[in-house]
């Protein structure tokens, strides 16, 4: 990436990031206490030891303990409770109020419930409404976050100062931590490149925006730490826009964006883009749905003057006999490249844009009962693509999956897939697939003369057998063995003939779950342990 582009990208993300901070990110309640506990699963805050609450309008309240239910925005003050606005003050044994409502309930042990408003006028007697005095029954040691101050933005986030994570092993206490609970789907979108470990840290946010800095680890090459800055804007499930800058400590900066909008019950539009290692790519797509049928228009552009365009239409799943379904998809579009796509031709410049059309048929069986208590399903997909230049590309892929549940805790699964493809250039096959000279070298430097047999037809056959053990709800172990028998395949080229992947999911503490995965490739091109630690920590 050029320096000018990097500066522009940083400025764009920083500009976006500044929006919520200045315009919308205003907490409406502040909670203080000797101890504040946060429970992520119930979105409950409990403050003890000198608990006080500050609300808009100069209102201040306090009690022996204060609970805030972030799902309902309800606050319960328990024991020696008071609420004060200027010189007006009301005392009670317990007080219930809402963050976004005027009503205040004052519970007196001798006389029952009295109601007033935030104006703190004269209170009137009322029956006790138990739902308003629901103080959560929490076990302090299960708290996800422990703090002394919490600033609450309803329906969006809580900022804790300082924040400790008593049950998250390895989580470092931080001076300030933003926990967001806004439920817009767009907050799940990411424009950052993939990482082997990614720990987001919220800077600021609102119900519609979130700015995060990400501490990351890339397992290479080159391997090393990495830092990312991401801004997310989201409006419910209707639309989102995300932009990110990523800077590895060893490596080049990259940028990305991702945006989506549901325009109507029929139409959706999306756009994505990346710029990394001096290569950029952008895509925009318009989708349409007509019942179960639909279509899509996609335009892609990238570095080196490359672009493509696609218009596709798909049928619904058409029922055939015995629950089998068939779906057809037709596609028309082009591929383009400045200087020509067919570079082996002397007049390549004449083929800067090559139109194509294709037809895809996808056949799927239902899941059926088979002998020995197994369950079986199969799919078959065939695609042919015709190009304006004498050229066609065929693909045929068949998959069969069988499962047998030996008990509720133990299941075995087997999947066989055979994918065949052929690239055909009538009368010019040898021109497009000449024997390499010098011969192709494997990653370890071994010449592979067998590559000469490749003339455009390839096949990928894989068999995966998986054993899955789930002894209890908190533990699951999976071991998968895959055998790949492909053409093209040679030491380090193509998939390893044998791989084993182990995955373990467990929950060693009540609110701390971890998931680990590791793969082993059997002596293939010098690769043994595949660096694919997948770590996921859940509250």
């Amino acid at each position, binding site marked *: 990436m050029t320096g000018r582009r990097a500066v522009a990208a940083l400025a764009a993300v920083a500009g976006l990031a500044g929006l919520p901070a200045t315009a919308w990110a205003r907490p409406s309640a502040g909670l203080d206490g000797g101890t504040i506990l946060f*429970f992520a699963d*119930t*979105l409950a805050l409990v403050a*003890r030891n000198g608990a006080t609450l500050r609300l808009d309008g100069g209102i201040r309240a306090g*009690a*022996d*303990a*204060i609970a805030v239910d972030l*799902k309902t925005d309800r606050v319960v003050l*328990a024991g*020696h409770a008071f609420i004060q606005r200027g010189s007006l003050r009301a005392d009670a044994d*317990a007080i219930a109020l809402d963050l976004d409502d005027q009503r205040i309930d004052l519970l007196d*042990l*001798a006389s*029952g419930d009295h109601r007033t408003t935030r104006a703190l006028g004269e209170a009137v007697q009322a*029956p*006790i*409404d*138990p*739902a308003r005095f*629901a*103080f*959560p*029954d929490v*076990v302090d040691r299960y708290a996800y976050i422990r703090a002394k101050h919490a600033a609450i933005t309803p329906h969006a986030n809580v900022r804790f100062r300082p924040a400790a994570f008593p049950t998250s092993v390895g989580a470092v206490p931080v001076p300030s931590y933003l926990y967001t609970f806004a*439920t817009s*789907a767009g*907050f*799940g*979108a*990411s424009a950052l490149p993939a990482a082997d470990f990614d720990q*987001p840290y919220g800077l600021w946010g609102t119900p519609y925006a979130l700015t995060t800095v990400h501490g990351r680890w890339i397992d290479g090459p080159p391997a090393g730490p990495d830092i990312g800055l991401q801004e997310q804007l989201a409006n419910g*499930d209707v639309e989102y826009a995300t932009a990110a800058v990523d800077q590895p400590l060893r490596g080049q900066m990259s940028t990305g964006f991702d945006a*989506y909008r549901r325009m109507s*019950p*029929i139409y*959706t539009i999306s756009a994505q883009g990346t710029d990394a290692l001096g290569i950029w790519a952008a895509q925009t797509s318009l*989708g349409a*749905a007509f019942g179960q049928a639909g279509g*899509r228009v996609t335009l892609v552009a990238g570095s080196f003057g490359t672009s493509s365009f696609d218009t*596709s239409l798909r049928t619904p799943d058409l029922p055939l006999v015995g629950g089998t*379904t068939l779906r057809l998809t037709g596609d028309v579009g082009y591929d383009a490249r400045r200087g020509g796509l067919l570079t082996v031709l002397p007049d390549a410049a004449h083929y800067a844009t090559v139109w194509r059309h294709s037809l895809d048929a*996808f056949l799927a069986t239902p*899941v059926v009962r088979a002998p020995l208590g197994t369950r079986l*399903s199969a*799919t078959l997909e065939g695609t042919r693509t015709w190009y304006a230049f004498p050229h066609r590309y065929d693909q045929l892929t068949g*998959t069969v*999956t069988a*499962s047998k549940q030996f008990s509720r805790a133990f*299941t075995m699964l087997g999947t066989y897939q055979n994918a065949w493809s052929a690239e055909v250039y009538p009368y010019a096959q040898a021109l497009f697939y000449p024997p390499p000279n010098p011969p192709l070298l494997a990653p370890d430097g071994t010449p592979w003369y067998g590559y000469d047999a490749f003339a455009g037809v390839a096949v990928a056959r894989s068999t995966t057998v998986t054993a*899955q053990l789930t002894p209890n*709800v*908190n533990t*699951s172990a999976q071991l998968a063995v895959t055998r790949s028998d492909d053409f093209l395949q040679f030491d380090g080229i193509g998939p390893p003939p044998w791989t084993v992947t182990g995955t373990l*999911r467990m929950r060693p503490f009540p609110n701390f779950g971890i*998931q680990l995965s590791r793969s082993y490739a059997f002596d293939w091109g010098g690769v043994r342990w595949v660096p694919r630690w*997948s770590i*996921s920590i*859940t*509250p």
Partner: protein
Amino acid sequence: MTHPLLIAAAAASLFRVVPLACSDDRLAIAGGGVVRLAAGASCAGIVPGKAIAIELDADGRATPRALDPAAHPASAADVPKAAYVLAPVAPADADTADQVVVTIDVFVPPRTPATDDIYLSTDRSDWNPAEIRMDRVDPRHYRLGIPLRRGARLAFRVTRGSFGTTERDAARALPPAHVVIGAPNVDVRVTVAAWADID
């Protein structure tokens, strides 16, 4: 007036409750009303907002006891209404401390790559797309049991491990999140119509 049969039913019963306040011979219970303390019982040791056990005698009077999770599974909702000197107008909320296991069953479409793992992405992890891997039941059926506290709300979506492979509805649009509430024997069944990356 207190019904004698209700009082008899509550005799010598232990309940786990969260006290809101205690003064003289009266104790306010979260999600409930106000009960009277038994003769000789006091507010000493009661901390507002921290769960305790209470023993109700035949007169519906409460004696605070030390917490024993195994011996006091009941909640404020089970305290007989007749025991309150200042009674609530509606049944109290259920206890939120109990852990329950909810089951989520996911059925994927035929175009799902046969060897892909299926994950749940939830709001409690800021929508980490690979938060929890599901267990496979058969070729197109996945299942996961999740321990939740009773009454806890969990919003989730189904993915194949990344946001780019999140489930889509039949119109290929991002659907609203599924929601499960922590309660015993809850089984949520989700049928995925399509994936974001597979048209």
